[in-house]
């Protein structure tokens, strides 16, 4: 067997095919002055814009509907009249076409900066600027993917403009950067293209050599074939009850209805912010009550855990007027909104109480982004004064994970959001494509923190559960049960797979799996310890 490179797998199917390396973009020439004059330079710019527009039109013709819309929007930015006029202004100062256009784009980028709604548009605009400048310099910046054959493409990371160019010859994808939630990972998952992202050593792969892309094994095997692919773990559906209850994550009426068709016992995470994103003013308590009642009535049998609003300046709710922030992940978000919006959080709880009374469902409420025991106590007091709920808090910040003994007698339950807990534990921005490997839930630092949360919660008599993305992975869910969590909550599409895995183990098997995982010292070793323990069942 050839060299094995490790990364993070996306998908369940493997593929073996020759490597096609996507060349890093050629360097653009330095900006320079021109003696040709504005008229000549503006003709050069016009031609370059037309040529990039033609490229976009060609891509659009071969793309699916969503991508075609993206290309149309890009064309509008590309052909913007004010942008052209500003570029002409710089030509009047003696700059060449490339410099004039690049400068004009930078000026617009500055005008649009600071508004989260425009961040992606600025990135698009800069991408267009590069394409126009490349066209002026006669350099090609497209991916130039083969249209025929079958290839595993290798690159740094792929942007939306890149993935829209994927041809049917792209049967596998390897990226050097990017994490489990990067754009590349999301697109590959939705199109069922086997991928391994965050493969730090992928630069070593050579064009034309055959590799096995083995997402279940989180690896790429040089010279490998399909017979070496790691099989996904399969658990027969025995009809037995899972070791701990499996609940569903929902965010809408549609989710609640779909979750009710799975084996989920209740809801472990009801994300409420989605209900407010399209409201231009704060809905009344009555209206909120009706909305919640319809969703509660449709949700699967069992307790329903509702998370109070989890918005921030990167996830703004229109009527809350959230100011822009340098660093939204570390800013005023989740329960911290109570500083300025106490009446909103109170009304939300009142609406939930009205819905609880109307439907007779058992409601647990929890607040996100809690970092002190005082915040937890304040929320618990507020929630109990407004309704008959079980009351809990999310464990997402490392500080509250260290303070669980102080919550004894204050909250009934805690629920761990592993995505944010990873982000804050590892100081790794979830949006940064270079840090994906740190956000792998199999990182020992996260798993050992989870172990401490489960045991501290138990000692304090607090019910504990996990509702992060990691609980949608069947093997990880068994680990969580083995660590002592009382329940898990998965995305609705994964509920039944997680249930089957948890039905295949008993308590002592899950505990010995957890013990083996806790002894492992790297993200690769923790996962293989879990897989080995499950395969031995």
């Amino acid at each position, binding site marked *: 067997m050839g060299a094995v490179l490790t990364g993070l797998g996306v998908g369940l199917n493997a593929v073996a095919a020759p490597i096609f390396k996507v060349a890093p973009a050629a360097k653009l020439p330095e900006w320079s002055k021109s003696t040709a004059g504005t008229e000549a330079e503006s003709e050069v710019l016009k031609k370059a814009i037309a040529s990039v527009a033609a490229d976009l039109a060609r891509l659009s013709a071969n793309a699916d509907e969503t991508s075609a819309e993206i290309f*149309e*929007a890009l064309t*509008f*930015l590309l052909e*913007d*009249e*004010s*942008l052209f006029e500003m570029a002409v202004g710089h030509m009047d100062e003696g700059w060449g076409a490339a410099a004039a256009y690049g400068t004009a784009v930078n000026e*617009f980028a500055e*005008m*649009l900066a600071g*508004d989260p*709604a*425009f961040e992606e*548009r600025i990135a698009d*605009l800069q991408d267009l600027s590069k394409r126009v400048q490349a066209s002026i310099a006669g350099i090609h910046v497209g991916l130039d993917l083969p249209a025929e054959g079958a290839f595993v493409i290798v690159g740094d990371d792929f942007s939306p403009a890149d993935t829209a160019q994927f041809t049917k010859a792209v049967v596998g994808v390897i990226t050097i950067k990017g994490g489990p939630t990067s754009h590349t990972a999301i697109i590959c998952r939705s199109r069922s293209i086997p991928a391994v992202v965050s493969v730090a050593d992928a630069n070593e792969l050579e064009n034309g050599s055959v590799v096995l892309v083995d997402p279940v094994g989180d690896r790429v095997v040089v010279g490998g074939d399909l017979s070496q692919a790691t099989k996904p773990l399969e658990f027969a559906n025995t009809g037995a009850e899972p070791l701990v209850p499996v609940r569903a994550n929902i965010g809408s009426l549609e989710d609640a209805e779909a979750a009710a068709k799975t084996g989920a016992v209740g809801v472990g995470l009801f994300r409420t912010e989605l209900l407010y*994103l*399209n*409201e*231009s*003013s704060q809905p009344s308590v009555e209206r909120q009550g009706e909305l919640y009642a319809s969703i509660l009535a449709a949700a699967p049998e069992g307790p329903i855990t509702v998370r109070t609003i989890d918005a921030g300046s990167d996830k703004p709710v*229109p*009527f809350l007027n959230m100011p822009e922030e340098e660093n939204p992940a570390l800013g005023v978000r989740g329960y911290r909104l109570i500083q300025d919006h106490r009446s909103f959080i109170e009304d939300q709880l009142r609406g939930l109480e009205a819905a609880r009374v109307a439907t007779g469902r058992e409601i647990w409420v929890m607040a996100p982004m809690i970092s002190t025991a005082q915040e937890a106590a304040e929320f618990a007091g507020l929630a109990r004064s407004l309704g008959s709920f079980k009351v809990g808090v999310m464990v997402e910040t490392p500080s509250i994970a260290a303070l669980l003994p102080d919550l004894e007698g204050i909250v009934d339950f805690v629920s761990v959001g592993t995505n944010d807990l990873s982000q804050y534990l590892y100081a790794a921005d979830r949006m940064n494509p270079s840090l994906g490997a740190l956000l792998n839930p199999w990182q020992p630092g996260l798993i050992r923190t989870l172990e401490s949360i489960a045991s501290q919660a138990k000692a304090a008599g607090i019910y504990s559960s996990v509702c992060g993305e990691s609980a949608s992975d069947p093997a990880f869910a068994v680990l969580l049960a083995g660590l002592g969590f009382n329940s898990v909550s998965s995305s609705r599409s994964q509920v039944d797979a997680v249930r089957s895995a948890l039905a295949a183990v008993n308590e002592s098997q899950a505990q010995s799996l957890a013990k083996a995982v806790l002894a492992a010292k790297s993200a690769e070793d923790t996962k293989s310890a879990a897989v080995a323990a499950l395969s031995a069942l």
Partner: protein
Amino acid sequence: MATFEATVTVIDPIGLHARPASQIVKLVKDAGVTVMLGREGENLVKANSPLMLMALKIKTGETLKVSVETEDDGQGTSIVAEIQEFLKG
């Protein structure tokens, strides 16, 4: 040239972002008229550039002044109505 003036309200939860800006510019270009748009009391911008419209950074709930250069009030009314539609999100 006479102008037809009216106000519209931004209802779209993301404000006046790229998509409505492009829709407005396309409408204005297709109609072949000059349309100015902006906050009341501020300088209006010519609605032939999505980037200029986006650079106004108009948020949900704001009211905008729309000025259409046309002799035909019927055309003015229908352009304003379409712009309002684009701003509903």
